């Protein structure tokens, strides 16, 4: 059995938390203290618009995952439950709602700075705005909802319905009105183009990095990807993101060229759907210990839509509307099938999420489809992103081991 030895981990990712995540929250608090605007933003909201208005975006979902990694998420969830929130709602939401009732000093990174505005979209789920409505009432700050059409045909950015793009763009125009009124300055169109351009470069770099993971053995694992994706989600339109991804790209490229794998004895190449168990990121090392490695995550592939700086609003529509949370399951099936083929993967792990309907419904269809179209086995595991109370570790790990045994037998036959 080949354990991941420390020296195999990517250099660029060493000390990632301290260097980038911790610093991000320090900067957020500093910005707030200087009296500059800070916003809480839900994922799939086009943050490029906020960056163009010099608003500092903080991500409650990221904060919840951080709390999970620091093993305090369950405590915070329990606080939310004591305020009347069901234990069946999104654990990100419960964790963040719980943090509102804790002292700053008791929270990791002193919590999130108090927001001046809240921004959510219906693009990923209803939970985002329902959760933010509570936060809005709690802090008495305005919430802007970017209401977007559900992409029922599962169209990619080139095949979206015209009416959907138009509606999205019209909502962005309303967002600009809102921002200009709230901030008191006009949106600088050049600045927006600049941000869009940087965000596009970030996407391009991230795509390159993912491409190198197709190499056998793969130079990068899910553990690293779920850390590194931080910039794609949080601040894709910043030079800091570009610089980081250039460094990461160079390292991953070098390893791919030298065929230096992230694990020594790569036997099973896996695709991972949905979210990781943020409270147990060592789960991926556990897979490594069984000679299995995650070569691609659907999560890493939904944020890299390209942007055209000459048409910022329209290209933001094209970037976000095809996010598979906002699409029929067909889009996810297409993505997973192409990942399985392009990354020469042997199987897929399909985690559901206790508090998330979007991630829990449809995995059975994905499983059937990829078995039929590609003959690839997959495993559905019932987990949660931040609340370990609904996670049966023994059962899940037993199923993983049986699953890997199936892959092994299939390889021997094949």
């Amino acid at each position, binding site marked *: 059995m080949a354990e991941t030895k420390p020296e195999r981990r990517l250099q660029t990712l060493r000390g990632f938390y301290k260097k980038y995540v911790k610093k991000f929250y320090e900067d957020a608090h500093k910005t707030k203290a200087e009296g500059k605007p800070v916003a809480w933003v839900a994922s799939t909201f086009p943050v490029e618009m906020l960056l163009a208005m010099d608003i500092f975006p903080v991500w409650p979902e990221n904060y919840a995952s951080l709390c999970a990694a620091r093993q305090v998420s369950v405590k915070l969830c329990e606080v939310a439950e004591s305020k009347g929130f069901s234990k*069946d709602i999104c654990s990100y*939401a419960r964790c963040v709602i719980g943090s509102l009732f804790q002292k700053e000093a008791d929270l990791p990174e002193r919590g999130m700075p108090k927001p001046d505005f809240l921004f959510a979209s219906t693009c990923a789920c*209803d939970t985002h705005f329902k959760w933010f409505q509570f936060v809005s009432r709690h802090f008495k700050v305005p919430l802007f909802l970017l*209401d977007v059409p*559900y992409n029922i045909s599962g169209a990619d950015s080139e095949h979206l319905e015209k009416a959907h793009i138009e509606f999205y763009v019209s909502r962005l125009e*309303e967002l600009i009105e809102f921002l200009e009124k709230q901030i008191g300055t006009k949106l600088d169109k050049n600045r927006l183009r600049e941000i869009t351009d940087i965000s596009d470069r970030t996407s391009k770099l991230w795509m390159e990095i993912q491409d190198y993971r197709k190499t056998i053995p793969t130079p990068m694992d899910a553990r690293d990807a779920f850390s590194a994706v931080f910039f794609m989600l949080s601040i894709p339109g910043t030079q800091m993101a570009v610089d980081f991804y250039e460094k990461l790209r160079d390292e991953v490229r070098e390893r791919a060229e030298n065929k230096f794998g992230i694990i020594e004895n790569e036997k099973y190449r896996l695709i991972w759907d949905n979210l990781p168990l943020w409270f147990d990121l060592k789960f991926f090392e556990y897979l490594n210990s069984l000679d299995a490695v995650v070569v691609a995550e659907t999560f890493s592939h939904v944020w890299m839509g390209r942007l055209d700086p000459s048409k910022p609003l329209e290209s933001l529509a094209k970037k976000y509307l095809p996010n598979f949370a906002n699409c029929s399951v067909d889009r996810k099936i297409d993505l997973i099938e192409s990942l399985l083929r392009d990354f020469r993967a042997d199987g897929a792990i399909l985690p559901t999420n206790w508090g998330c309907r979007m991630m*829990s*419904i449809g995995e059975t269809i994905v499983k059937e489809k990829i078995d039929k179209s590609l003959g690839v086995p997959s495993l559905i595991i019932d987990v949660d992103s931040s609340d370990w109370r609904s996670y049966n570790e023994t059962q899940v790990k037993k199923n993983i081991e049986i699953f890997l045994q199936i892959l092994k037998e299939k390889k021997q036959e094949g």
Partner: protein
Amino acid sequence: METTPVEGVSAMSVLSPFRDLLLTRHDVAKGWKGKGKRVIGWSCSYTPEELIHAADALPVMVFGNPEITKLADVHLPVNICSFPRSCFDSALKGDYNYLDGFVASSSCDNRDKIFDMWRYHVKIPYLHFINIPHMITERANNFFYEEILRFKASLEKTFGRIVSDAALKKAIQVYNENRLLLKEVYDLRRKKPPLISGVEALEIVLSGIVTSKEEHNKLLNHLLAEVSDRADPPEGGVRLLVSGSVMDNSELLKIVETVGGSVVVDDWCTGSRYFWDLVDSYGDPLRAIAKRYLNKIPSSFMFQSEERFGHTVKMAKRFDVEAAIIFVLKFCDTHMFDAPQLMEEMKAMGLPVLYLEWEHSLSGLAQMKTRIEAFIEMVKGVE
């Protein structure tokens, strides 16, 4: 389970037809088909039924069944709302084999994603999906109007029949009449004790959702003409408002009303939120329909939460309730998020409030009964 008669309420001639219609709804729909008409299922109260009516088809809401959802459970994990799960299960069982089509819409995450299940696992000749904006703005109204046009074109293309303005106006008239009659029926419960029970009122609304509105209007007119002479009015009890997403059978309310509660008004999509708002009978009928459906009393998936809570408060006052019970289907995110705020609104009115999570299959019913009974005793004690 569905055929158990209501304890303490004898079925009088003007009320029993509603219950009969509800219980025989599949046969009624099949009978309609026997006359050469089409039947189209729908899943969310934002579906503009008038268009289906104007296309000479019978719109029926797809309900679940009160049983364990064995067939749906193969495809869905545990942590999914049991109402759309049960509807999907009914479809898998073949209860809805008579449908000529099914119309879904972007109402909540559970239903958006379960529509994929229908697409993959239910054989149905025609499927259509309506995009509902989740907030009310001018642009959202324009977008929704376009969606309504798209729906009309889709019906016309599929069934080879023009949906004319005249047919739409006729549908609006029939539907509005139904809405006004239902309001009158609801007002019978403002009396103390109410002239009809909560169970009866629910069965009246539900039967109208799954049968022809013309037929339903006849029955409602008959009921309203006769009901004041009713020999066996309900006994009454603690006057309650019940709140939730949907309630597609009367089992829970039967429990409430057998332990001393008297359900005098509701706030859910198969009750007051279904019929409270009218369609404008003037101007362009399609625009009027689009406007009514998007701007009606909001469901909890709409951004306009304050209006939703406002409606609940208004209902609580209009029907002079003494307490409220919030029934939230487990894993119904939007209602679970609304619950703490809604409870505050009720408490601010001085109303005791009970929050109950329930499963559509009614598992854990005995325990729920105990909690409801204790709550009603508590309310009585306060008085």
